[in-house]
C-alpha cells in the first residue's frame, strides 16, 4: 500500500518535471525570438531615421575638408570615406549629433572636378557628392 502511494507521488513529480521543462523550453525559445525580432526592428527603424548629407567640400591648410550635416533625427557615426569608389579612410570615433554639422579633414588628398565622394555611416546609410570645381 505504502509502495503504491509513493510511486504515484513519484510519477506525478516526474510528470510535473517533464511538463515544466517543456514549458520552460518553449517559453525560453519564444523569448529569444521576441528579443531577436525586437533588435531587428529597432535596427531597421534607426536606419530609416538616419540621414546625412555632404554640404561642402573645402580646403584648409592644404588639406581637404568635408562638411557633413546630420539632417536626420538620430545621432550618426561616420564609418568610412570613399573617393572614386576607393576606400580612403575608415573612421572609428566620428559622431555627429542630430541636426549638427561636422568637418572631416583628409590629408594628402587632392580632388579634381568630377571626383565622386561617398560618406558611409555604421548603419549602412550614405551620402554622395560630385566635385563640381576643384577646391
Amino acid at each position: 500500500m505504502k509502495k503504491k502511494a509513493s510511486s504515484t507521488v513519484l510519477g506525478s513529480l516526474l510528470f510535473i518535471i517533464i511538463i515544466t521543462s517543456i514549458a520552460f523550453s518553449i517559453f525560453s525559445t519564444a523569448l529569444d525570438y521576441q528579443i531577436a525580432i525586437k533588435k531587428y526592428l529597432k535596427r531597421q527603424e534607426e536606419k530609416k531615421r538616419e540621414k546625412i548629407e555632404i554640404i561642402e567640400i573645402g580646403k584648409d591648410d592644404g588639406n581637404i575638408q568635408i562638411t557633413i550635416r546630420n539632417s536626420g533625427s538620430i545621432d550618426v557615426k561616420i564609418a568610412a570615406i570613399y573617393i572614386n569608389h576607393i576606400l580612403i579612410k575608415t573612421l572609428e570615433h566620428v559622431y555627429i549629433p542630430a541636426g549638427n554639422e561636422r568637418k572631416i579633414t583628409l590629408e594628402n588628398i587632392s580632388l579634381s572636378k568630377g571626383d565622386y565622394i561617398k560618406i558611409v555611416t555604421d548603419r549602412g546609410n550614405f551620402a554622395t557628392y560630385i566635385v563640381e570645381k576643384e577646391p
Partner: protein
Amino acid sequence: MKNTKGISPIVSDLLLATIVVAAFAIVYAATTGITTQMYNYFSDTFNRITEDLIIEEAYIKSGNETVTLYIRNIGEITSKITSIYCNGTLIDQVYGELTIKKNKLTVIKIKLSKKPSPYAPQEITIVTALGSKFTARLITQP
C-alpha cells in the same frame, strides 16, 4: 510449485529498474536529438534575423574582370561569407577576409568569369554560413 509461480521480488525489482533505466535512456537519447535539432534550427533562425551585411562600395569597370567589394557587417553577430555570385554564377576566385566581425569592414576582391561590357547590370549576391543572402546591383562603368 514455488519456483514455477514467479521470480523473486528482488529480481523483479531489479528487472523493473533495468527496464525503466533502459526506457529512460532511449527516451532521453531520442528527445535530446530532437531538442538539439530544434535548438539549432531556432538558433540559426534567430541569428539570421540579427545578421546583416551591406556592400558599402563596389566598382565594376568595363573590360576589367577584377571587382573590389567593400562589405560591412551592420548586424549583431559575426558573419562568415561562404560564397559570392554574380548574375547567378558562382564566383570561384574570391580573395580577402571572409569572416566579418560586428561593425567591421572587409575588402574582398573577386574575379568575374568574363569581362563585363559597359553599362551591363551586375547583380552581386553574398551568401553567409547561416544561409542569409545579401544582394546589390551595380552597373558596369564605361
